[in-house]
């Protein structure tokens, strides 16, 4: 199951790779959330496979982004835990109809803004049709295709 990062993790929600900022309790109750079991499984596979293929750390945020959506998304990216230079945040606010993609310094070299804009374009066209999960999955696929495989430094 995809790990969930909480913005304010409770004490009992700390998962196996939790840090001070991220709680990542596993999603066990999809009935309360917006996504169904099948959609969660698809999201899980899309996130994990794109992270595995590219070596970048993709995280997905779905929720309110405040009045300054870009600043909130960049703040979330800074607190996403792990190696933030190598991580890519896909932040979607369905209520505000805003989609933000934030790349770290190392990730931006492999994912230029033009590739991100292309992914955003295809995602927004799907989001406009109401296909939230399809937009996320196709966007992640497009981003990982654009990033390609990581350079094999110690191939043996």
């Amino acid at each position, binding site marked *: *199951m*995809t*790990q*969930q*990062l909480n*913005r304010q993790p409770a004490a009992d929600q700390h998962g196996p*790779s939790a840090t001070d900022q*991220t709680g*990542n309790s596993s999603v066990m109750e999809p009935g309360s959330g*917006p*996504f*169904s079991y099948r*959609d969660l499984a698809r999201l*899980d596979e899309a*996130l*994990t496979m*794109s*992270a*595995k293929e590219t*070596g970048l*750390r993709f*995280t*997905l945020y779905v*929720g*309110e982004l405040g009045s300054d*959506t*870009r600043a909130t*998304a960049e703040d*979330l*990216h*800074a607190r*996403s*835990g792990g190696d*933030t*230079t*190598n991580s890519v*945040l896909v932040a979607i*606010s*369905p*209520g505000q*109809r805003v*989609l933000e*993609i*934030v*790349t*770290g*310094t190392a990730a*931006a070299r492999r994912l*230029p*803004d033009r590739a*991100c*804009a292309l*992914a*955003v*374009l295809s*995602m*927004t*066209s799907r989001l*406009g049709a*109401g296909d939230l999960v399809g937009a996320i999955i196709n966007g992640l696929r497009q981003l990982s295709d654009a990033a390609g495989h990581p350079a094999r430094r110690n191939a043996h």
Partner: protein
Amino acid sequence: MSVLETVLIYGVVPLVIVLLFAAVTLFPGRSKDRTKYRPGQSWDYAPLWYEPHPDVPGVVGGHAEDAPGAGHAAPRLGATASVLAIGQRPYVPEADTVRRTAAGGARGTW
């Protein structure tokens, strides 16, 4: 052709077909499995934040990377680390101030 046969063929058979399609399309169980979202609708759910599964090998930041795996040499101490090992403390930024890490990206609305 008797009256009974006529009714069966021209009345009952179309009715059965119509009811079959009605049952398939109006059956409520299938719609529950889809994520409900319409553009313009308010989003009343708590914020969710997902990261890649950490237990899968090959995922950056995963557990498999943390473990000293066979075949991979342990990371050597660099210059900074060896200086720190002598006794200096690393620079730890304030807990509240988060350094800006974003370098690029894109945004869009729909």
